[in-house]
């Protein structure tokens, strides 16, 4: 009976999304309705985690059609954790973004939330589907919902959305071509069946070309340098409520898709691919990390700085996945979980800062410590996480990634990680210096209640990073190590 949760966690937000568009635009009603649905998603996510811990990976056949004919959904220990993480981030993002609705969304709120739920459904689908074509459809649903959500920003968001549409569609199409090649060679779209066939046959050029297309498509969605230029503007000009859901999850799910392709489809032949592919891709990731961090250093707008950091973080995970040592892959997946929460906290902090000091430029930050101390503490906490100070989760993910990189002998990746930590240190020191040491222009300005509340919320979510850090090794052993077959 509990297997039904696997489909329910996709169908529930999908139906909620359709119904939301019909509701009247009353903020309290929509807020209660949204929290109710997202709490239900969290309960289902937690149910999935319990299910896989009790009986291991579980499959669900849609409409009772078994795999060679039908579409299969499959939950593994890690995808159960990820589907719960999606529900949790959606819930926290929803609650944290509520206060910005009146300013930024206005009377189109039901439509906005409709897309919001649709995006949650697509993310859950991306996380649970075990069918290569189904994954394409989910990828496109998630992108289409994201385009709409970003375009709600108005003004400069439109051009950013258009660039995102062009790059996102090209990326998904490349993925589709790759799936087509695999279908021609094997005659199946089920990921488990694909893996069996690929492990048994000789790896011809057609397979390698398919892998090329799949990876290029996903790197576009992941916004890894040099395919990153659409991301910073799209995330910066999006409404705050959008960034809270899209920023933490969108690129992370692309990373998970890449992991599925490597481990679940090409897993059997991965060691033979490693010597050449790892060399190129880890090198690319190292450059990407440095470029992303330098871009972030050059910004004066906080939201844009954090959007550029997402580009750098994508490099961490890409490089980690392609290290030949299993610890690299484990570190990359742990970093995925950690970075989803950290990005959520970053964007929550931006909202808190905006309502405390009235702006999100670096120069607006003067006196933040007096006006909203909790916001400032949340900012320092997430800064520690990104720099990699124990006991935050960022330290453990970076330590595991570096151990993997050293064991694989990829020292350029180690250097890139260290320089990125240094870069993050400079970025956050600049911010904290402004917030703490710069004299306040107007000492009369009272503490805004909204800013205090938003700061407290950001700090509460930020404390999850410490909890995740303290339980880092049990999490890796229980949820991540079993899915890494290296």
């Amino acid at each position, binding site marked *: 009976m509990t297997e039904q949760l696997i489909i329910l966690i996709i169908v529930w937000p999908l139906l909620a999304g359709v119904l939301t568009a019909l509701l009247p635009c009353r903020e309290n009603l929509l807020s209660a309705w949204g929290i109710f649905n997202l709490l239900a998603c969290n309960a289902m996510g937690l149910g999935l985690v319990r299910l896989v811990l009790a009986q291991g990976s579980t499959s669900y056949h849609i409409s009772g059609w078994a795999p060679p004919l039908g579409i299969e959904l499959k939950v593994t220990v890690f995808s159960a954790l990820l589907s719960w993480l999606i529900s949790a981030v959606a819930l926290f993002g929803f609650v944290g973004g509520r206060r910005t609705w009146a300013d930024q969304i206005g009377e189109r709120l039901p439509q906005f939330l409709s897309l919001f739920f649709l995006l949650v459904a697509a993310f859950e689908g991306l996380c649970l589907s075990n069918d290569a*074509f189904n994954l*394409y*459809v989910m990828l*496109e*649903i998630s992108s*289409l919902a994201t*385009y*709409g959500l970003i*375009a709600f920003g108005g*003004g*400069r968001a*439109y*051009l950013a*959305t*258009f660039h995102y*549409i*062009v790059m996102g*569609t*090209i990326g998904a*199409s490349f993925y*589709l*071509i790759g799936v*087509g090649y695999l*279908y*021609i060679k094997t005659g199946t779209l089920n990921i488990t069946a694909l893996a069996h066939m690929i492990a048994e046959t000789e790896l011809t050029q057609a397979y390698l070309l398919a892998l090329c297309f799949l990876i290029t498509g996903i790197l576009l969605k992941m916004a890894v340098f040099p395919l990153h230029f659409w991301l910073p503007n799209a995330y910066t000009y999006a409404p705050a409520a959008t960034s809270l859901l899209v920023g933490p999850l969108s690129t992370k799910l692309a990373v998970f898709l890449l992991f599925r392709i490597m481990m679940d489809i090409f897993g059997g032949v991965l060691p033979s691919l490693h010597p050449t592919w790892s060399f190129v891709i880890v090198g690319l990731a190292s450059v990407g990390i440095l470029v992303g961090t330098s871009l972030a250093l050059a910004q004066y707008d906080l939201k844009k700085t954090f959007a550029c950091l997402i580009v750098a973080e994508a490099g961490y995970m890409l490089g980690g996945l392609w290290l030949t040592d299993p610890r690299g892959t484990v570190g990359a997946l742990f970093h995925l979980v950690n970075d989803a929460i950290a990005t959520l906290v970053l964007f929550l902090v931006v909202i808190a800062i905006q309502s405390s000091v009235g702006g999100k430029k670096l120069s607006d930050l003067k006196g933040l410590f007096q006006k909203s101390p909790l916001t400032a503490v949340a900012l320092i906490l997430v800064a520690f996480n990104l720099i990699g100070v124990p006991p935050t989760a960022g330290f453990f993910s970076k330590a595991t990634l570096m151990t993997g990189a050293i064991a694989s002998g990829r020292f350029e990746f180690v250097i890139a990680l260290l320089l990125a930590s240094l870069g993050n240190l400079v970025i956050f020191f600049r911010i904290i210096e402004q917030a703490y040491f710069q004299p306040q222009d107007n000492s009369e300005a009272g503490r805004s209640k909204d800013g205090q509340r938003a700061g407290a919320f950001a700090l509460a979510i930020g404390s999850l990073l410490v909890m995740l850090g303290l339980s880092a090794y049990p999490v890796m052993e229980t949820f991540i190590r079993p899915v890494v077959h290296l």
Partner: protein
Amino acid sequence: MSVIEHNFIYLFFVVLLMIGLYGAIAKVNLVKKLFGLTIFQTAIILFYVSIGQKKGAAIPILEVGHGHQALPDVVAAHYINPLPHVLMLTAIVVGVATVGVALAVIQRLYAEYGTVEEDEILEKIVRS
């Protein structure tokens, strides 16, 4: 010569794909970019549809449906593969949705800046 003859459909696919990609990346006019993107997607649909094709095969409709009697012996080689066509129905829907969203965004851009030329829009953004 025979290489072209045997792989004509694939070559056609690649040429169409490259035309679309060029349009989507190199054109300055946003509507033209969108045309390029549509050509790009259509090329992929064509590619998928072509891989279901078999020489001398019929359309995949059985005279006796399931649920009636025992199925007669079905030889797969006598029917073209319907699966890629079905997949492409979904992909066409996705494509239509993408074009719809993109056109709506272009319309908003035109209302905002009074032009659909990317360089002119960027110029106006920089000036403001």
